[in-house]
């Protein structure tokens, strides 16, 4: 049943649609990537790229959406066909989630400590209350909660934003998950607190050896934390590969555009180069390559033929892009590769 030759998580040609008043929204349209044991994979994209829907689909948390195609296999089992009960058993134990806003995920009327104890005992019925309590305090201390024993009794509203995020991370790693899904875990936080939480995610990952799927719009966070990166645009994966390769030698015009539109903390940039236009409507996605209306390289083939992900370059790691003219892009001098 458990297939150990396959990567830990395989997202295979996933497509998710939403019915709205205006029509069918193709939020995810053929996303494909894998996550290996113990690695940190960053999924980047702007709003509407489908990155969050993809992440939520893994745990079957997208109720209003309909999976029209594809599979999500975790340890070889298709999560989409699992009975609800089995999915619940996986959720919170083998796969844990860290949300952007801890207040939506923490119960406001139950103390932090009790929530962690419950999470522990929910998946391990044999665990005694006292043992669970000790373990919870241990977890709170691990995530850098000062005075963990006292904090154990406090309620979420008594915590600052950073502390809540710590508590949620403690809860997420409580059952030693093999996959952590972190959806914009630091977006709501101030920079100095974000730095603390990023350090913590690193520690949590080392501690549990869990693979981490890091969903974010912040390229800086990915560059700091991820081993590999998956770039999404208009519901599709447009580029993926080793983080250094993708950031220094991107082979998709969208990735190039993103990096060039970014003001830099570490150097002076004379002028930003924004990507013209705005992301396409997912109600009526453009034919062919979804990026072609904004792409400087676009030509007829891009307007008709949808580019599939293909391997580019000859590096030591696998680098994939969904661009017909990736080789041409490689030849162009860009500021990114400076």
């Amino acid at each position, binding site marked *: 049943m458990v297939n150990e030759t396959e990567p830990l998580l395989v997202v295979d040609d996933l497509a998710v649609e939403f019915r709205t008043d205006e029509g069918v929204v193709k939020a995810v349209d053929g996303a494909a990537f894998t996550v290996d044991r113990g690695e940190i994979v960053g999924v980047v994209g*702007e*709003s509407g790229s489908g990155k969050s829907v993809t992440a939520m689909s893994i745990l079957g948390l997208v109720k209003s959406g309909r999976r029209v195609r594809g599979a999500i296999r975790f340890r070889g089992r298709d999560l989409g066909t699992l009975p609800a009960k089995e999915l619940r058993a996986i959720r919170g134990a083998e796969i844990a989630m860290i949300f952007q806003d801890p207040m939506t995920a923490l119960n406001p009327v139950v103390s932090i400590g009790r929530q962690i104890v419950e999470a522990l005992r929910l998946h391990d019925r044999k665990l005694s209350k006292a043992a669970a309590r000790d373990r919870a305090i241990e977890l709170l201390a691990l995530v850098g909660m*000062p005075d963990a024993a006292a904090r154990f009794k406090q309620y979420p509203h008594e915590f*600052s934003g*950073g*502390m809540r995020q710590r508590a949620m991370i403690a809860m997420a790693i409580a059952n030693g998950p093999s996959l952590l899904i972190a959806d914009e875990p630091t977006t709501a936080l*101030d*920079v*100095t*607190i*974000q*730095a*603390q939480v*990023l*350090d913590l995610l690193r520690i949590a990952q080392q501690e549990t050896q869990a693979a981490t799927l890091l969903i974010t*719009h*912040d*390229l*800086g*966070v*990915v*560059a*700091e934390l991820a081993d590999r990166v998956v770039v999404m645009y208009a519901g599709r994966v447009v580029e993926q590969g080793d*983080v*250094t390769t993708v*950031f*220094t030698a991107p082979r998709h015009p969208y990735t190039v*555009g*993103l*990096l060039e*539109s*970014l*003001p*830099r*903390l*570490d*150097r*002076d*940039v004379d*002028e*930003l*180069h*924004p*990507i*013209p236009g*705005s*992301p396409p409507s997912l109600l009526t996605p453009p034919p062919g390559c979804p990026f072609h209306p904004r792409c400087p390289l676009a030509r007829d083939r891009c307007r008709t033929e949808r580019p599939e992900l293909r391997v580019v370059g000859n590096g030591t790691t696998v680098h994939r892009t969904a661009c017909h003219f990736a080789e041409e892009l490689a030849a162009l001098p860009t500021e990114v590769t*400076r």
Partner: protein
Amino acid sequence: MTVETAAVDRLERLGEEVLRVDDLAMHFPIRGGVFRRAVGAVRAVDGVSFAIDQGETLSLVGESGCGKTTTGRMVVRLLEPTSGRILYRGHDLATMSEDELRPWRSKTQIVFQDPYASLSPRMTVHDIIAEPLRVQGKYRQGGADRVSELLDLVGLQPEHANRYAHEFSGGQRQRIGIARALALDPELLVLDEPVSALDVSIQAQVVNKLRELQQRLGLAYLFISHDLSIVRHVSHRIAVMYLGVIVETGTRDEIFTAPHHPYTQALLSAVPVPDPRLRGARERITLTGDVPNPANPPSGCRFRTRCWKAQAKCAEEVPQLEDRLGTGHPSACHFPELLTVLPTSGAAS
């Protein structure tokens, strides 16, 4: 008078001081008890001074709760300061009544962070941009033409005028907000996190547009942001705020290449940089703990509770904003020292 002709005058006065803020403070009362009497105060802003010249961008940076947004709202008098002066070309706006203020209102305008909450869902784009003109009784003389001109100025099409805000993307909405702020020919724009709510690829469009407008129209900007990368890109001068006070201020280069307040240094080192090659190569200062409660700030230096070099003096004596190191820019630290936190230009390659 078109937008451009009005700008000629301003362009001639580049470098002249437009706004001077002097020891500005905003204390929000905390009410308690049966009679809702003030039992304390949140000192959101506690004695802030700065000046902005025509054509210049001064950025206020800091984390949430540092008072940067409150300062911006006082400058446009959405809030009445508890004390201090807001001198617009020598006229103190801080103490004016709403009626006295009305003619001066057009000189300082504001662009908000949230492109969704800042535009009325019940008005067309034309009516949104025309509102300031109508309020000031200036719509009758060529107001409609002016709205078209403003749309063009911010890069929108004339046919967008009859649509409603919900039909636009975040970036377009922010352009509408900018057009509205420009309607009355202001000299100073308070830009309160104007691109924080936008996607990366759209942020750059709006930032470029703001820079272009500044050059064409000679505008002064008070740019409020928590995003240091954008601040580096847009600012001439920067003031770093922490818990209601300015802890360090200087030109862009001074702040980014020679910061000497520990908080500035920590802030700069905490920002993730989109370059995996720098991972582990940068000096990282990770601050412990959270920002203290502004209702009860620490004695002496407000940063001392999170500072790694705090000493007894820091708890006893409030550090004044002065240039102790002779680097040409002041900081409010008893023990400042130069520290290069960011790789110097070119080191990345």
